[in-house]
């Protein structure tokens, strides 16, 4: 019962803040609601017993990405933006597409529907560490390479012309 209460409130939080992210006229608000939404997803992770994912979600997404986006928004923002429309002309078509897709996805939801969780929740940090250093060592290293590349790329692209 408690689980359902928590799930539905989290779902409401996530959906509402996600809607705010895509509709807010002020981009700063969008970014703030993004942080809220991501934190809610973290809560869902916790509810699903994925404790390490929960921690990663909070640290990387909420603490890192959301804050980074906020910085950039503030870096590029202009006062005049607040008076401008933030949604383009194809919103109706987009809404239609989303509705159609929802109709498609509804079948998946129905297919998934009845399954219930059986196993008890166990801590996952230990097994995750083992698998990362074991079977998934190569992808793990590749991801670190990707991150290094992203770091270098970010430095390269964001250098100002004057400093070159």
């Amino acid at each position, binding site marked *: 019962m408690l689980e359902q209460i928590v799930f539905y409130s989290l779902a409401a939080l996530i959906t509402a803040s996600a809607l705010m992210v895509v509709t807010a006229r002020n981009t700063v608000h969008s970014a703030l609601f993004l942080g809220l939404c991501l934190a809610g997803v973290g809560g869902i992770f916790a509810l699903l017993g994925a404790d390490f994912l929960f921690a990663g979600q909070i640290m990387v997404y909420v603490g890192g990405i959301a804050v980074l986006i906020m910085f950039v928004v503030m870096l590029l923002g202009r006062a005049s933006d607040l008076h401008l429309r933030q949604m*383009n002309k*194809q919103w109706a*078509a*987009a809404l239609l*597409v*989303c509705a*159609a*897709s929802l*109709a*498609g*996805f509804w*079948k*998946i939801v129905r297919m998934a529907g009845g399954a219930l969780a059986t196993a008890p929740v166990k801590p996952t940090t230990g097994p995750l560490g083992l698998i990362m250093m074991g079977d998934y060592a190569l992808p793990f290293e590749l991801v670190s390479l990707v991150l290094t590349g992203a770091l270098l790329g970010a430095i390269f692209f964001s250098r100002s012309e004057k400093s070159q």
Partner: protein
Amino acid sequence: MLEHVYLIPLIPLFASLVILLGFKEDPHSPAPYLGLAAMGWCLLQAVSIFWGVAGGRIVLPYEASINWFPLATEVAGKAFSYQMPIGVLIDGPAAVMLVVVTLVSFLVQLYSLGYMHGDSRFRRYYAFLSFFTASMLGLVVSNNLLVTFMCWELVGVSSYLLIGFWFEKPGPAYASKKAFMTTKLGDCGLYLALLFIFTKVGSFQIDQVREFATRGYFGMGAATAIGFGLLCGCAGKSAQWPLFIWLPDAMEGPTPVSALIHAATMVAAGIYLIAKTYFIFLAAPIAMEAVAWIGLITAFLAASMALVSYDIKRVLAFSTVSQLGFMMCALGAGGYTAGLFHLTTHAFFKGLLFLGAGSVIHAVHTNDMRSMGGLSKKMPITFLTMLAATLAISGVWPFAGYFSKDMILESVYHHSPVMFYLLTAAALMTAFYMFRLISMTFLGPDRDHEKHHHAHESPLVMTVPLMVLGLLSVVAGAALAHDGFVERLLSFPMPQTPGPEFPRALGLGVSALVLCSLALSWFLYGRGDFSIAEAVKKRFSAVFNVLEGRYYFDQLFLGLVAVADGAAKLAFWIDARVIDQTFVDGWGLLMRVFSELSALFDGLFIDRTVDGFGGLSSDLGTGLRALVADGQVQEYLLYAAIAVSLATIFILSR
């Protein structure tokens, strides 16, 4: 010692390359000593091999080879991969030839130090000499007919280079061209013969071909065809009738080169190749007979031409042709041993004669014997050695030529007494013209005081080779013939043919006639009084004109060339006027009309259609671009999302 025999051709080749690439042209360049050292090494090797063979320490034949390259081929309808070998085959003749070639080449190189001294292309001369010798040595040791042929052609090339060594003068340039092209004419036959052999045997290896031939697998027709092809090549190389025309002109080259060509490297190749492929001739009696007759004709014609020539080198050149005819004749008559024996002894005394003639020319600066005379006092060493060589070539006992020529006459008599008498006549002529040469050059009074005054004996570097060869001219025959050594060394297993035995008395008679011929020669030319000779010449001027005109063989060849030229011109005219203008041009016109029509059709129908499709796609694209491709990324994204949602619905609603 035999396992390093492959180095014998390779070292002079290497030396030649080093001289050519590594030294600068300079009259005092040390390059000649390199060539000399290489040749000296080869000489030592060859002599030690020969010594081992003579002492029975080395058992011949020796063969060793490595695989060179594979050759996919098909013989008698059976496809297989033939591993072309490259290697050495040393048998008795090869062992002897190695000594002969290296010795003569070494002495010629030594002699050239004096003779060519101060020439502006001294270095190149030595490089060519080494290359020449290397090619000949390769030919001698090769165990593979293809490699033999390659060396054969290299010999031809290097003779071309050396005969035309003074290429800025028109004479040598012409002579080198003549030599090259005449021998090439013969080589065509040789090449065809080798190809024929390969198509029959499927191998170029001499021992395999020999095995094939001795078992009689060739068949009479094929063996005869191959034999004539080989004979054709050898007639070109060894200056046999009718391809002998190049050799008298080849003396345009430096005299030591002539010595090399006439004694060891060039003309010997033909005789040697006949001996090397003797098994084929044994299988083809007609080709064998042709060898004998061509040799006989050559011996006779060349000897008669030598009788009237006044050019000292030309006399010697005719003499070489004649002597090669002797060898050919002997080989054709079944005298394998005799032919090769004479090849060996002839190499010594003919090399000596040429080097001696070079010494004389060096002293008096002319080739014309009429300007010489009385040089025996001035040049005693040259005189004595050349006298020894003359007696040797004439066949006077106990000089070298006596033994080999005697053996030739014996085997020819055994084959056919008619040939024997003709050959004896040639031998008598040999004695006559050779002593005529000696008489006119060294005996009698001096006819040109100016030249006689300046004449002097050549330096030691030139006379030492003369003395060495002189010694060999005296003793080589007796030494080799002693105790039947030469029969053991230079023998070929062949069936005994019936024929008359050579009566010893006849041999003595020939020797007596030779002495008479020498005496007659001395009587006509040796006393400084040519009046009788001139009278004879006047009396028989028609004969003399034919002889001096060399039987007009040159003119005959030039005529043949002219005929061929005319035929070619006619063919050209037919080609240009008839074939080109009617057939080719007419056909071309027809094609043009047709293609014009085709182009019209193409332009009217096909191109229009193609252009229509192209234009349609282009218009469609332009329209679509105006509609959707306005550069708005989110629009593209919308299209993609529409597609994905449609796909989702389609897949999940099934």
